[in-house]
């Protein structure tokens, strides 16, 4: 366990014209910790995630990431080149729509191998072997390594996107509704994979989901958002088993078997 968080956000607010999508959100995330952000559509959870992952600049507030080289750096004040480098090397974003996270004109193996090459790998045989290993880990047929992702189903594309992100062993991963379009069986496999990786690699994860069952099994801590505000937060089992806020009680009461 480290004494310093990996990610630190303070007073993050994002307004689009007059609409305030998320309001004064603060949080800290440690290595190996999985934080879930739950809430209904329009609650601001995806906006918050995009502010945290550097994709969207907040109107006010700061987001700091502890880099390997120089400690805490403000994600939104660093230069574009630096941010792109960090996004490739030290953290990863798994998009809700796999087409946003994949290169659709590059083969499945190429999509996975590309991030290894960006990290300095040069030996073709090693890159291919590792790409094959990752296809296995996300249960994609390694015989289809040379096919374009356009030939894959939505669920397969999502698994490929996750392999592409995790192959470079990031320290921090952002996931936006990653299991949304997947079969229940594949969803379970991915949950298991993500849990192992957080344990084995000390990976920190921020996951946005509206599925409280996924949140229960995957996350350590939970933030419940409504209308741009965090209405309740705490250990995941505390929030789900002993919800204090009226809205959280409604959410928990509305699902089956979470």
């Amino acid at each position: 366990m480290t004494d310093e968080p990996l990610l630190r956000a303070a007073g993050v607010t994002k307004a689009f014209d007059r609409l305030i999508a998320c309001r004064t959100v603060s949080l800290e995330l440690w290595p190996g910790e999985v934080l879930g952000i739950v809430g209904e559509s329009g609650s601001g959870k995806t906006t918050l995630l995009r502010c945290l992952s550097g994709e969207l600049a907040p109107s006010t507030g700061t987001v700091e990431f502890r880099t390997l080289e120089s400690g805490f750096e403000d994600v939104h004040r660093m230069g574009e080149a630096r941010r792109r480098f960090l996004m490739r090397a030290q953290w990863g974003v798994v998009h809700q729509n796999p087409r946003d996270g994949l290169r659709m004109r590059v083969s499945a193996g190429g999509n996975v191998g590309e991030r290894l090459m960006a990290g300095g790998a040069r030996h073709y045989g090693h890159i291919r072997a590792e790409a094959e290993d990752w296809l296995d880990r996300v249960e994609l047929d390694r015989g289809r390594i040379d096919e374009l992702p356009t030939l894959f189903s939505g669920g397969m594309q999502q698994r490929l996107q996750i392999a592409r992100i995790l192959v470079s062993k990031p320290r921090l991963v952002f996931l936006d509704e990653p299991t949304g379009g997947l079969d229940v069986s594949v969803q379970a496999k991915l949950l298991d994979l993500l849990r192992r990786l957080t344990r084995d690699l000390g990976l920190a994860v921020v996951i946005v989901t509206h599925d409280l069952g996924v949140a229960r099994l995957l996350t350590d801590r939970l933030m419940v958002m409504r209308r741009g505000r965090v209405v309740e937060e705490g250990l995941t089992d505390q929030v789900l088993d002993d919800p204090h806020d009226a809205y959280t009680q409604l959410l928990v009461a509305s699902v089956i078997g979470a």
Partner: protein
Amino acid sequence: MEAIRLEQVSKGFTLHLRGGIGLQVLRDLNLGVETGECVVLHGASGAGKSTILRCLYGNYRPDAGRVRVRSEAGLVDLAAASPREILALRRTTLGYVSQFLRVVPRVPAIELVMEPLLERGVTLVEARERSAAILDRLDIPARLWDLPPATFSGGEQQRINIARGLVAERPILLLDEPTAALDAANRAAVVALIREAKARGTTVVGVFHDREVREAVADRVLALEALEVAA
């Protein structure tokens, strides 16, 4: 030396979906448990037995009072601890066996049992050996070990749950009716495991409806009565 001390603990629930009805379960509860002691909570349903166990595991947040447990770092108040501190205590100090197994689907039974050991840094080989040993003692046939427990019987699932809770030999064990779905032979196996844990100095707080089990493990029985429903 005390392993657990509850001081003036109160816990109620406000049911917002029911017009904000208040339900008071614990009021000003005081309880000390010595290291190595086994205290059995006894009383009608609604008396707060599970609520006490959940407060001791950091699962319920008490409204008032202190819930102190002894860890490697001394006494820690769960009611005031951060989520990270509670997670650390669960890894190192607190074992909890709930009434139901709730786990990621498709994960083989033996890996579920290995998980608490791996979280504490035990090697894969040792974790597998220790998990196999406890599954064997709980009479789970080896052919089931590599299958996910979703299709297991209720009794088998409960034994996987017990194995998961006991395998890491944490110093404090919280047991919520672990023997409810078990036959006599398996109940006896669980009783033997609890007694061995006690012999190692493990502190146990549990709820056991079965009188034989209660008499076999309890050093002290704490009788609880339900509070009246507050307005």
